[in-house]
């Protein structure tokens, strides 16, 4: 294992985050602040409690889930796409780095960035509502596990994308709608039966629900399904990434 090489990929990617630090920090802070003003204070005061917690508390795990999914995918996909675009991916391909070291390097950096953003969302939410973490182990498991999983997915996207349009297509057209329809702002029981069934086939619902369980101790579905969701999120992209690096698809002639 090339530990120094792995560390250097992580370090380099984190430097990229540092270069856009204000944007990385301000954006989640501002969006959380606005969500709380609009949903937590204005609309939430009319709703009262959901599953035994205030509406403001109820939406925090969902907001964190949205941030995890979007930031992990964007950070990892743009990281590898930029290297392909500039041709500097050859720096990694010519170095004694295996596919797993390259994949882990990008994903750990992306997950670290995402974790920082999630922490900022949590801290911003604390300005509005009390948020003791109900199940700390599961909270960090789902936070980091999903951040890594979506980073793997982001790498697939960054390798597949032919241009910037394709790069932004998946986050805009697929991830954003799935996030909004994943129960971020409502409980499953608040929906009509048909929408409840549709929500259950949305994979992001399980992440929102898992974070809600680990943070607030309330859940609409089983914890096992959420754990399985994380496992699938790791295994499928990792298998595909291995195939891609071994075959050289779009990265090696």
């Amino acid at each position, binding site marked *: 294992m*090339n*530990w*120094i*090489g792995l*560390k*250097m*990929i992580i*370090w*380099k990617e984190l*430097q990229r985050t540092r*270069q856009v630090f204000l944007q990385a920090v301000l954006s989640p802070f501002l969006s959380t602040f606005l969500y709380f003003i609009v949903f937590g204070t204005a609309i939430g005061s009319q709703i009262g409690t959901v599953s035994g917690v205030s509406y403001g508390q109820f939406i925090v795990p969902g907001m964190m889930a949205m941030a995890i999914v979007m930031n992990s995918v964007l950070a990892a996909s743009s990281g590898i796409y*930029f290297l392909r675009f*500039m*041709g*500097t991916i*050859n*720096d*990694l*391909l*010519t*170095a*004694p*780095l295996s596919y797993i070291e390259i994949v882990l390097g990008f994903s750990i950096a992306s997950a670290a960035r995402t974790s920082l953003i999630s922490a900022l969302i949590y801290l911003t939410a604390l300005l509005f509502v009390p948020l003791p973490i109900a199940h700390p182990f599961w909270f960090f498991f789902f936070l980091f596990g999903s951040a890594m999983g979506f980073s793997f997915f982001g790498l697939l996207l960054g390798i597949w994308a032919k241009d910037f349009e394709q790069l932004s297509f998946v986050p805009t057209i697929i991830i954003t709608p799935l996030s909004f329809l994943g129960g971020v702002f409502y409980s499953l029981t608040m929906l009509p039966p048909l929408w409840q069934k549709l929500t259950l086939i949305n994979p992001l619902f399980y992440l929102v629900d898992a974070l809600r369980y680990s943070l607030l101790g309330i859940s609409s579905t089983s914890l096992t399904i959420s754990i399985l969701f994380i496992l699938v999120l790791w295994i499928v992209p990792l298998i595909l990434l291995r195939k891609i690096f071994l075959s*050289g698809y779009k990265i*090696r*002639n």
Partner: protein
Amino acid sequence: MPILEIKDLEKKYTNSVQALKNVTLNINKGELFALLGPNGAGKTTLIGIVCGTVRKTGGTIMVDGHDAESNWRAVRQLIGYVPQELTLNPFDTVWDTLFYQRGFYGRPRNDALLEKILKDLSLWDKRRSMIRELSGGMKRRVLIGKALTNEPRILFLDEPSAGVDVELRKGMWDFVGKLKTEGVTVVLTTHYLEEAELLADRIGIIREGELAFVEEKQALLHRFGEKTLTLFLEKPIDTIPPSLKGFDLILSENKKNLIYHYSKGQTNVTDLLKNLHSERIFYQNMETATSSLEDIFLQLIEKKGETQKITNL
């Protein structure tokens, strides 16, 4: 002793284009090997396969006794690669560019080494500059610096002088010469035949994916080099006298010059001059010229179907 052994190397793309056909080549430790060939001949593909950016479809590569497939980590540690394109992150500083590259190779931090490389390449003053602020020539030097951060034993330079002005090119030649004296084996591809003629110990010519020729530079120049003797006549002549026909002389259009081509091994110039004297053809001046590597290269790549395949010696 070879540091690089390439055997029956093949590259066939999915669109059936065969970029390399059974290339066999040995590169000796400490030598400077120039790989010449027209565009699309397979030079970059060959280098790319050895360095890991292109996948081979057949053959074997050994670097310093390590198999490039089964012992790829050890092989890559030994190699430095300077690509043809200016592939650099415009937002990184010069220092960071080298710092990251050394890390990717799993090498521990060594600021003194990076400082030496940057000073050797006259980039020390630019260490805090972003890549996007540099000129094309400086970027080219950063690429070379990057390739040296892992202290390679064999350095591949793919068209290192492309887009570099004359002064800088000469500076780069000096630098490459210095690397060679430090024991680094250098393999370069170039379009500047002057570069190969000046620097190389051996020359390989690749054409349509096949290694057409590998030979010591001096032997190549001697073997294929041609000399030209031009005699500037005192008075124009209408025709070449029959007694001089055996020399295959050419009379210039203005009838004032006689041109004689001969190989370096030939020694009948004295006979020619004696015969001219007996024919009472006198000359005011004479000039000799030796064919350059460029002439030889053109001559060789035009000789389709007359490939002289010399596997490495």
